């Protein structure tokens, strides 16, 4: 795939969509900084990509470390034109479970970590008047489903955050992309009930990068746009009876 980016940071690059995105970017010839908690998975990618892949062990909830790490990474990469926030947590939540620890983990990983990292990216790109910011949100952010209140909240919030960034930064020539995947075959979805239209993480990564050239909001795969159009239109008094 011929991609316009030469220096990229991928947050959450140890597994799932983040890992597939990092691999796809490396294949296109970009230098990629892989950032995640789990080093082993990233190191296996780094070992086959020479100095093109740089790895950093980091928990996105370690907010105070981010500004310094961000500047270190941009220095190590030798530039920056793409930041992808793909870190995400979706622990199994029972329908009767109200576990603040789990909810907090989701909100911190899916939302606050994203805000902290993308603030740095936005600050930089506003100065350099170039660059692409990609946030992996989810179709789950479009309605408050009974399944996982905090997960839906985190995704709705990051969607709104990305929209705000887009509205702030488009005048500076910065592209901000909101990605709303449907079901992707990753650790996060494996074994979960009610999964359909599953596509591989690799296929999703290719589609995400393709969509990221132009900005705006992209559903992956694209047919989810129409599904969500219908789902969003369902009145609340009906939706609350639906088993989703």
């Amino acid at each position, binding site marked *: 795939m011929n991609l316009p980016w030469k220096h990229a940071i991928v947050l959450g690059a140890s597994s799932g969509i983040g890992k597939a995105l990092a691999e796809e970017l490396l294949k296109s010839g970009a230098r990629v900084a892989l950032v995640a908690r789990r080093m082993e998975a990233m190191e296996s990618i780094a070992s086959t990509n020479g100095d093109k892949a740089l790895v950093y062990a980091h928990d996105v909830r370690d907010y105070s470390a981010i500004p*310094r790490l961000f*500047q*270190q990474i*941009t220095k190590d*990469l030798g*530039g920056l034109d793409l930041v992808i926030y793909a870190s995400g947590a979706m622990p199994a939540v029972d329908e009767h479970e109200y576990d603040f620890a789990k909810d907090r983990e989701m909100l911190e990983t899916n939302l606050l970590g994203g805000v902290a990292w993308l603030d740095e990216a936005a600050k*930089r790109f506003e*100065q*350099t008047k*170039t660059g692409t910011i990609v946030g992996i949100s989810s179709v789950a952010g479009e309605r408050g489903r009974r399944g996982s209140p905090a997960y839906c909240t985190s995704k709705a919030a990051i969607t709104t955050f990305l929209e705000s960034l887009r509205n702030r930064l488009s005048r500076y020539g910065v592209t901000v992309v909101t990605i709303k995947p449907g079901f992707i075959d990753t650790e996060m979805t494996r074994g979960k009930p009610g999964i359909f239209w599953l596509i591989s993480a690799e296929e999703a990564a290719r589609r995400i990068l393709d969509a990221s050239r132009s900005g705006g909001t992209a559903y992956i795969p694209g047919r989810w746009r129409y599904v969500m159009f219908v789902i969003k239109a369902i009145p609340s008094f009906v939706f609350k009876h639906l088993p989703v």
Partner: protein
Amino acid sequence: MASLLPNDHLERIKGWGGAVASDGYVWRPSTTDQLKDVFALAGESKRLVTIRGAGRSYGDASLGSENVVLDMTRMNRILEWDPATGVIRCEAGVTIEQLWKYCIPDGWWPPVVSGTMYPTLGGVLGMNIHGKNNFKVGPIGDHVLAFDFMFTNGETRTVNRESDVDLFYAAIGGFGMLGVFTSVTLQMKKVYSGFLEVESIVTKDLHELFEVFLERVPQSDYLVGWIDAFATGSKLGRGQIHQANYLKPGEDPNPAQSLRVENQELPNNILGFFPKSVVWLFLRPLTNQLGWRFVNWAKYLASAIAPKGKKFKQSHAGFAFLLDYVPDWKRSYGPGGLIQYQSFIPKETAEAAFRKQFEMSKANGNVPLLAVFKRHRPDKFLMSHAVDGFSLALDYKVTESNREAIWKLAREMNEVVLAAGGRFYFAKDATLTPDAFKRFLGAETIDKFLSLKRKYDPENLLATDLSKRLLGDLHSLTNRTPSQVSEKVESIIS
């Protein structure tokens, strides 16, 4: 731990041609003390330093991705001027424009100027620029009496040919790798009129261009050729030569008048009413293969039907700064910008090599929109681009879709240039490979240059995107000891 650099110093910097760009942390000191502070800051934050003048190099010579970029344009004071001897001392951020405008009313003109008046003297020395009179007077370095030079440790030394011969001949033309010029003392050229006497000569093919050039060289002060790069077959290399000569004392009846700055200024309007500032916008739809095929054809036709042997008067600025006639003309090339491929080839092999370059461009599908031809002579500078021969500068429009093809063409043309014993010029370069760099300079020259770098920049702090591209590994060594660096240097050279 390295300290954080303030985000508000971060800027996107483009090479002048607009085809290459990178982000750096830019500082614009106005005094030598501030300059020292920038070096200290770079050391604390463990960043490399890129020295940048006006940013008029076409490629990546003044870019430093993620580096501290030292923009010298605010150090732009004229320090001393002696109108009796024509010796001037300026800070390095003074531009050619400031220089000529300051001196011309006293009857002095810069001995060497580029086709644009906007470069700074620091940049001019770093690249050791040449002009249309290179065959006669050499590069700008040959007219430098002395310069003040700051090393990365903050120490400054005054350098001239006698005091420090190696440093003098390596720092000039050393593309900002050894230290930063803080001031320059220059010998200006006495002129007796604000005008030059110019003659235009049409040449029907490349061979005639060479013949006319060789014939005219002994009696010319300036010579420059333009070539219609779209012409093929028997017309390949057809073009026009401009010869210019200084007026002798007494030839201008009123030199005080012609030497006034306002009589040198380039006109603001075309045909008296059309503002030049928007011309690039109208050129934009024309700036492609088809449009410029027509422009080149029309220019050739106009020169071919003009009366032969007629001489006319033109101001120094009007003749010298052809590139400044249309402000922002590079914008007509669109968002992909342009690169200029300029090679310098010995006189014995130049004609065949240039012919080959035109043919290769055509086969590649990317004919240069502008082609300019000059005569050169060798000089004593270590990293010299000059040869006893000719140079051909080819401007290529770069787009997203032709970028790879252009870079490939440049690499292929490198082989032609190297086989012909040619050289390259860092002020123009955007495509040279480390291999071609080593081959044109030779191991001995590179070794000598790097040993000077080890001596004067032992921490290997000075780097640009160009030097990273050409020297590669050398720049990953910032945090190592000099002996480790020197070991690595040996391995790179071998």
